[in-house]
């Protein structure tokens, strides 16, 4: 029997009971739709977050003092001599407000050695201008979204002055505002990241600027640059041994690993939940096909009388299930892909205290995901029609011809 005949027969069989076929196809399409849409979006977000964390520097460890502890030059020396540490630098971090276009917006201020930060976070790129000298304390590097307003208009150019109001809490009910003006020496390329660190809304200044212009005295922490991510565990253990609970240690590599296992679990759960829709579809196909086979018992008898073998009858019934599945799979994948892009367009809002981060990432619709989805959908058709097809193939022709 030719494949074209098998497909033609299947198509004809499905068009005979259109409503039933359409309803079954809709039932089948829910599985691939759910899998492509939900898995695609969650996987897209997961990949995005992982990439962001990894982009922050896999060789970087941030050591921050807990309440009551204050870092000194001695701590910097101690930490920089730990085996595996290549470089160390203190840093200051705070927040302020700056005018961006027509509105005042919160900006992050990091005071850190420029050579260190560009080495530790290789994905930070200069779009315009040049990195200022460490001694040039009035100059700064601004993030892309500070230089450009929300409409994409450039509001700060290299050489412009940017005025930043920095608030300092002195005690209960006492806030000191300090206005500092920097000269823009460089503008960063769009980073796109918003998790943990938001370079697009950050002003990078020198340590000297933080101390002399902003008046910061206590280091926010010390950044360590290690030889490779594999030594992060041993370096972290050594810091714990030296400082106990006096410091908190943040390693982006470790965060990436945790995030990776969390996103892995989320992806697995999404996949498993979608499987429920596939299981229901198997039952739907089975119900449709068994009804179809019962209704066509006499016809099966005629086919056998004309010389169709059991195998050919089995193939015909199985192919009906597979054709339905392929149509349902195609619809599910198409609608699921559109839905995934619509969902992703909304973005994922992460609330972190007063800060709200909206993560926007394209859905991760890989060829692998689409292939697995189509294979699973074909399996739905095969599994759902296997028993009805076997039953049809095994009906003795004389019995089938007597069937009313």
């Amino acid at each position, binding site marked *: 029997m030719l494949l074209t005949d098998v497909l033609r027969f299947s198509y004809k069989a499905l068009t005979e009971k259109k409503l039933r076929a359409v309803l079954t196809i809709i039932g089948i399409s829910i599985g691939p739709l759910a899998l492509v849409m939900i898995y695609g979006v969650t996987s897209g977000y997961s990949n995005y977050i992982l990439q962001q964390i990894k982009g922050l520097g896999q060789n970087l460890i941030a050591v921050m003092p807990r309440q009551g502890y204050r870092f000194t030059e001695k701590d910097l020396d101690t930490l920089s001599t730990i085996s595996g540490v290549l470089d160390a630098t203190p840093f200051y971090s705070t927040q302020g407000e700056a005018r961006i276009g027509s509105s005042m917006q919160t900006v992050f201020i990091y005071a850190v050695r420029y050579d260190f930060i560009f080495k530790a976070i290789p994905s930070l790129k200069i779009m315009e201008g040049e990195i200022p000298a460490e001694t040039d304390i009035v100059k700064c590097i601004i993030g892309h979204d500070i230089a450009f307003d929300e409409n994409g208009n450039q509001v700060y150019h290299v050489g412009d002055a940017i005025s930043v109001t920095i608030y300092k809490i002195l005690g209960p009910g006492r806030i000191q505002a300090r206005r500092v003006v920097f000269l823009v020496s460089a503008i960063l390329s769009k980073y796109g990241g918003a998790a943990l660190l938001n370079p697009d809304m950050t002003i990078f200044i020198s340590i000297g600027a933080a101390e002399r212009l902003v008046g910061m005295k206590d280091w926010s922490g010390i950044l360590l640059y290690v030889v490779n991510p594999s030594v992060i565990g041993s370096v972290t253990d050594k810091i714990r041994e030296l400082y106990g609970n006096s410091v908190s240690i943040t390693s982006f590599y470790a965060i990436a690993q945790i995030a990776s296992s969390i996103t892995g679990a989320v992806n697995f759960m999404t996949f498993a939940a979608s499987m429920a829709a596939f299981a229901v579809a198997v039952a739907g196909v089975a119900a449709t096909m068994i009804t179809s086979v019962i209704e066509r018992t006499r016809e099966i008898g005629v086919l056998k009388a*004309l010389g169709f073998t059991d195998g050919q009858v089995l193939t015909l019934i199985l192919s009906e299930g597979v054709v339905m599945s392929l149509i349902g799979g195609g619809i599910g994948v198409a609608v699921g892909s559109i839905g995934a892009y619509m969902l992703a367009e909304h973005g994922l809002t992460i609330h972190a205290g007063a800060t709200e981060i909206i993560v926007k990432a394209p859905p991760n619709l890989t060829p692998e995901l689409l292939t697995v989805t189509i294979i699973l959908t074909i399996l739905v058709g095969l599994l759902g029609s296997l028993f009805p097809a076997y039953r049809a193939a095994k009906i003795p022709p004389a019995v089938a011809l007597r069937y009313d």
Partner: protein
Amino acid sequence: MDKIIELINVKKAYRTGNIVTWGLRGVDLVVYRRDYISVMGPSGSGKSTLLNMIGLLDVPSEGKVLIDGIDTSKLSSKKLAYLRNRKIGFVFQQFNLISRFTVLENIELPLVVRSIPRRKRIPKVKEALKMAGGEESWLPKKPTQLSGGQQQRVAIARAIVGDPEILLADEPTGNLDRKSAKTVIETFTELNRRGQTIIIVTHDPEVANCTNKIYLLRDGVIIGREEPEPDKCIIRTVK
């Protein structure tokens, strides 16, 4: 003469729980090439069971069915299907055309089994339909758009399209008016004249009288053979 079908002491029992009903109680029958045979008998006499045995649609409980010298009792279901496709054509009382298929698609079914490309099937389908007294204009139509007589001619075309040596017809005129029945029997007679071996199971003496041999069946055994009366053949009696 050349034997094409031979039944040797064929018995068929149907079991329902502990109750055994005999469809055939020991039938011996020899059919030669180009025979034109009718089998008559009252309802429940075993006519259809006999036809199912000859057509390899059912297997005997005892005895042997030989088709062209091949003992079919030892064949697998796949080989039986092959023999049905190559050597036997069926015509049923209810026509048994597939309603969602066109006339063309119904007639070509035995050729589909053989994986013959469609472009080669179509001339054979047209030739078979012409031989069965049908018209080419029916090919794109659905069976339900045709009259009963026309549908039976389509069924005959389907039965002969694969050039089988044996044509089996189970009450082929049972659902037809007299005029249509006459046309169908004319077709069978013409096919037999061209060399087709035909066995017709019928209640209708006017149909049986058109054949060359009439076997009488009762209670699952052949009780005798009658000589046909050509003057009482439906071809002559219906004007």
